[in-house]
């Protein structure tokens, strides 16, 4: 994969005085019909932020319903096997519904209630955000429609059933490559049409302002906890924090409270897919160019005519052509670095974590584990490597069974 071309980059950022910028990135590029709703959301969110009752309700549910705080677990056997840094796992996979997505879905559902919206829509890739949204809608008695690419419905079938069991309507999307980007297009079309009574619970730190900020704020709890937990356990900060990056919500949540800790290296891991050619991966920082997709200005995998490229990843949750605008800023400033793991490396990482620690990670999270497997041996034994395990792998059993033979592995130990 060639490093991101800097020569060929168009003049960044259509100049703007509007809010919601992360450096040159972000903004609000939407059909006018949605502007009133985005402004209303902006205002409602500001009021909620200033309202102690909102935080009290959110925190109580995060604790008693979702299972926060999640543990920070010292992965002793994995650390020993890799022979370098001490590896700590932030266990978002232990949350109710099995991934970090519920932190955000719950927060946004509370905003929807505040705004008096009775109908919820969402998009989903891996199905984890869809399940989280269906769950909070069941909890609050809200109507729920989830858009999902038909390819993702096929490969994440258990989550389709879970959403329906929870009472949500799952609408398949066959356009394009029938994955996450296409589901977002369809969700936005629904929103434009039903904006008067509908709240769009967007699942990642993506889209038009104020979504990237709202989603990040609801995911910040990950690093708020992990920072306290590592200080309690080791009396020092981690040297490196690693997280996978789809739209970027678990990563921004895992990074955020360390942004001012210059000693902490932040590493985002994108989907390297099965090759370096456009269309074979979803590594936006390794072949993407700044552009506007689905409401925001950020890195986009696209051809030289500005048509958005198709993507590939074994992991539905990372299989997306753009990335949250705050990551684009962190990338350009160098505060975070972004690398990628290939499909086969992620698959191998699932097996490694399963067998050393008894933890089956989601294929998305396995991309972060794969990077940890590369990094840890290069770090001293006194170093601390923290990995965000964004979700658990139950949803992926079908893919794993097809992609990975376990034969002979018994003999390997």
């Amino acid at each position: 994969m060639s490093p991101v071309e800097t020569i060929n980059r168009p003049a960044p950022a259509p100049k703007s005085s509007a809010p919601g910028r992360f450096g040159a990135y972000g903004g609000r590029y939407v059909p006018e019909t949605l502007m009133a709703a985005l402004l209303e959301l902006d205002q409602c969110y500001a009021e909620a932020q200033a309202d102690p009752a909102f935080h009290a309700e959110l925190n109580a549910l995060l604790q008693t319903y979702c299972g926060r705080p999640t543990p920070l677990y010292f992965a002793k056997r994995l650390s020993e096997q890799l022979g370098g840094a001490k590896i700590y796992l932030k266990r978002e996979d232990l949350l109710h519904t099995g991934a970090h997505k519920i932190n955000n879905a719950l927060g946004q559902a509370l905003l929807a209630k505040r705004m008096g919206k009775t109908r919820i829509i969402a998009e989903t890739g891996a199905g984890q955000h869809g399940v989280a949204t269906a769950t909070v809608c069941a909890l609050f008695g809200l109507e729920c429609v989830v858009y999902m690419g038909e390819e993702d419905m096929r490969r994440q079938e258990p989550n389709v059933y879970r959403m329906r069991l929870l009472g949500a309507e799952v609408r398949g999307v066959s356009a394009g490559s029938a994955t996450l980007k296409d589901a977002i297009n369809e969700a936005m079309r629904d929103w434009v049409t039903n904006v008067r009574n509908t709240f769009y619970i967007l699942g990642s730190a993506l889209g038009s302002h104020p979504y990237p900020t709202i989603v990040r704020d609801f995911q910040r709890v990950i690093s708020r906890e992990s920072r306290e937990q590592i200080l309690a356990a080791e009396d020092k900060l981690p040297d490196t924090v690693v997280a996978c990056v789809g739209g970027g919500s678990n990563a921004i949540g895992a990074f955020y409270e360390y942004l001012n800790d210059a000693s902490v290296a932040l590493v985002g891991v994108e989907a390297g897919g099965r090759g370096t050619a456009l269309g074979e991966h979803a590594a936006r920082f390794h072949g993407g160019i700044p552009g506007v997709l689905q409401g925001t200005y950020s890195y986009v995998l696209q051809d030289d005519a500005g048509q958005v490229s198709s993507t590939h990843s074994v992991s539905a949750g990372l299989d997306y052509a753009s990335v949250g605008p705050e990551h684009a800023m962190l990338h350009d400033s160098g505060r975070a670095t972004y690398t990628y793991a290939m499909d086969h490396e992620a698959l191998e990482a699932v097996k490694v974590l399963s067998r050393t620690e008894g933890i089956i990670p989601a294929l998305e999270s396995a991309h972060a584990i794969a990077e940890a497997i590369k990094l840890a041996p290069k770090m001293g034994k006194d170093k601390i490597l923290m990995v965000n395990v964004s979700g658990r792998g139950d949803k992926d059993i079908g893919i794993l069974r097809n992609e990975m033979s376990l034969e002979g592995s018994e003999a390997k130990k």
Partner: protein
Amino acid sequence: MSIKFEKKPGLVIYLTAGDPDLATTRDMAIAAVDAGADVIELGVPFSDPLADGPVIQRASERAVAKGTRLEDVLKTCREIRNARANAGIILFSYLNPVVRYGMTAFAKAAKDAGADGVLLTDMIVEEAGEYLEAMRANDLAPVFLAAPTSPDERLKAIAENSRGFVYAISRVGITGTQTELAADAETLVKRLKQFAQIPVALGFGISTPEHVKTVAGFADAAVVGSALVALVEKTPAAEAPRAVGEFVRQLKEGGQPST
């Protein structure tokens, strides 16, 4: 500037460039102008047309699959301009192909291609600083969209920043045909007219001469898109210009407002 609506009903015609092919797009545009269309909106096909319904989505998909690029659309624009000096021509695009091309370079190229103005579906007034500058520098008309959900202060900004005409969206929703005109439509045009010194064109869902006639009663022009694109979809390329001309003639004639 060739954007004017002299004879009622004012008529704006949308075509997805490159569907079925660029030469046919050019010929259809010319046929539409000859049949009485005041303005042609030449749509740049995009991979992710999230403000469009199924008809225009399919047209975009076909045109993108054929490899239609912004440069090609500019060339087609030039050909239409060469053939019809007085036609109004607007380039209609999602933002990304324009950003990829470069905003400043695009505005200059659009001017060179003989366009009168530009409409960007996902560009709102607050984000439009650089865009407006580029339009101004090249004497091009920026056309913004106004929605039934837009509060008055937004309508004011939209009207004040648009040139040529303002595009009022008839209903809350995406593009596509409908049998009845939304009740929202007339209210929005009236609200916009408080602020707009320039013509107001109403679009989304307008598909029959009867619709055009109703719209002519309260707006300066009607925009017809999906109905035409659907016609193109089911007509063989060789016959499409004639079919488009015929349909536009029906819209223009049947759309005369009753006085």
